[in-house]
C-alpha cells in the first residue's frame, strides 16, 4: 500500500502554506478517481492535501450569474432544485456519473480536474459555455472550460493551482439541451457521449452548442457543427450534414471499451437523435 501524509486544511491560506511546505503534494477532493490511481500505483504521491474542509469551496450560488463551488458533490448538484430548473442538462449528465456512492463524495471540480475525455458533466458544462476559476497562492484566473482540458489526464492547471468554482450564465429561456451517453452497461464510463444545446426561433437556430465525449483526447466542442447550425433553418438535410461533420471532427481510439469505428457510429447517431429530440420530432 502506498504510504502518504494527509492534511485537512480549513482555508485556502492553509492550503498555500502546505503547498509551500510540501512541494509536489497533490490535491484530493472526493477521492473517487485519485484513490483508485493510488491503489493501482498509477500515481504515488507522498503528500495529499484534502480540499474537503476548505471553507468556501463547496456551495451553489444562484444570482445574476451562477457559481458552483468546485467541492460541491455531484449529489448536492443533482439535488439542488433551482439549479436543476435552470440547467436540466447539467443534472441529466450528473445523474449518469457512476453510482450513488460515487456521486455522494465525488465533486464537480474533481470530476473536471481528472480530465477524462469521458467526463459526463464536462460535456454539459461545455455546451453551457461554462467558465472555471483557478487559484493559487499568487492569484486567480478565469478561463473558458474549453481551454481547461489539454489532453487525457492533463489540464492547464499550473503548479499549486486548484479549481475553486465553475461559473455559468443563465441560458436564454428558449434554450433547450440534452445529454446522451452510451456505456457497455448502464453504470459505465462513456463509450461515447454527446451534449447538444439549441436555441431556436421558429425553424431557425439562433445558437447551437455541440460537444462529444470519449472520442478525442479531451471532451470536445464540435465547432464545425455549431457553425453549420448557426442561423440555419434546421432540416433533415442539415441534420444529416451535421452527422457527417460530427463524425469527421472526432478522433476516437479503439480501446478496451470500444472500437474507433463504433464510436464514430454512435456520435453520428446521437447527434441526430439529440437534435430530433430537442426539436420535438423524434
Amino acid at each position, binding site marked *: 500500500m502506498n504510504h502518504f501524509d494527509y492534511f485537512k486544511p480549513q482555508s485556502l491560506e492553509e492550503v498555500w502554506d502546505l503547498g509551500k511546505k510540501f512541494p509536489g503534494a497533490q490535491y484530493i477532493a472526493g477521492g*473517487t478517481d485519485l*484513490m483508485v490511481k493510488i491503489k493501482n500505483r498509477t500515481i504515488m504521491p507522498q503528500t495529499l492535501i484534502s480540499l474537503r474542509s476548505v471553507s468556501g469551496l463547496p456551495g451553489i450560488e444562484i444570482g445574476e450569474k451562477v457559481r458552483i463551488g468546485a467541492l460541491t458533490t455531484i449529489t448536492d448538484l443533482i439535488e439542488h432544485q433551482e439549479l436543476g430548473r435552470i440547467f436540466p442538462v447539467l443534472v441529466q449528465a450528473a445523474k449518469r456519473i457512476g*453510482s*450513488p456512492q460515487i456521486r455522494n463524495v465525488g465533486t464537480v471540480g474533481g470530476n473536471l480536474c481528472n480530465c477524462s475525455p469521458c467526463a459526463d458533466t464536462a460535456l454539459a458544462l461545455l455546451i453551457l459555455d461554462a467558465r472555471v476559476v483557478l487559484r493559487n497562492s499568487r492569484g486567480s484566473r478565469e478561463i473558458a472550460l474549453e481551454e481547461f482540458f489539454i489532453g487525457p489526464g492533463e489540464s492547464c492547471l499550473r503548479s499549486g493551482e486548484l479549481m475553486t468554482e465553475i461559473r455559468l450564465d443563465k441560458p436564454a429561456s428558449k434554450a433547450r439541451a440534452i445529454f446522451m451517453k452510451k456505456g457497455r452497461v448502464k453504470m459505465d464510463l462513456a463509450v461515447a457521449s454527446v451534449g447538444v444545446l439549441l436555441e431556436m426561433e421558429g425553424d431557425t437556430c439562433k445558437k447551437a452548442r455541440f460537444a462529444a465525449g470519449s472520442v478525442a483526447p479531451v471532451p470536445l466542442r464540435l465547432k464545425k457543427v455549431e457553425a453549420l447550425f448557426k442561423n440555419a433553418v434546421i432540416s433533415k438535410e442539415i441534420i444529416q450534414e451535421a452527422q457527417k461533420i460530427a463524425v469527421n471532427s472526432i478522433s476516437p481510439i479503439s480501446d478496451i471499451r470500444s472500437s474507433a469505428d463504433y464510436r464514430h457510429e454512435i456520435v453520428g447517431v446521437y447527434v441526430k437523435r439529440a437534435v430530433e429530440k430537442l426539436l420535438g420530432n423524434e
Partner: protein
Amino acid sequence: MKKQINFVLNGFEVAVAVEAHQRLIDVLRGSLGHTGTKEGCGEGECGACTVIVDGRAINSCLYPALEAEGKSITTIEGLRSIDNRLSVIQQAFVERGGIQCGFCTPGMIMSTKALLDQNPDPTEEEIRDALVGNLCRCTGYVQIIESVKSAAEKLKG
C-alpha cells in the same frame, strides 16, 4: 505516524488511531474489528464496502480514514437492535431470498437503508438507481428488489 480521530460509529463515540494513508474500510475492518463491511474490489466499482456517512451511502474503500473525523458513520453492525433482532430491512432480505452467498449483502443493505431513509416510498426505477453501485453475482437482483419493496412496505407501517 498515527493520528487519533473521533467519530460516531453506529451511535457510539469512538476514538481510534489511524495512519494517514489508511482508508475507512481498513480502520473499520482492522482496528475496529467490524468485519461486516467487505472489500470486493477496492476501486469503488462493486459496492460491497458501502457504509453510510452523515446519511449518505459511500464506498469505504475510497474514503480516506482521516475524513471520518467528526462524522456519523453507520455500518451493517449498526442495524441490529439491542435484543439481537434484525432490523426491518435485514429481515426483509432474509425472508424474500435477497441473500445467497451473502458477500454483497452488507453493502446492498446499507445502500437500501440510505435509500429508504431519504425516500421511504421508492418506485422500482428509484430502487434500481439507488442500488446500481452494488454488484451481485448470485441473485440476478430480482429477489433483492422484492426485499427492498417488502422492507419499504413494512417501514411505512
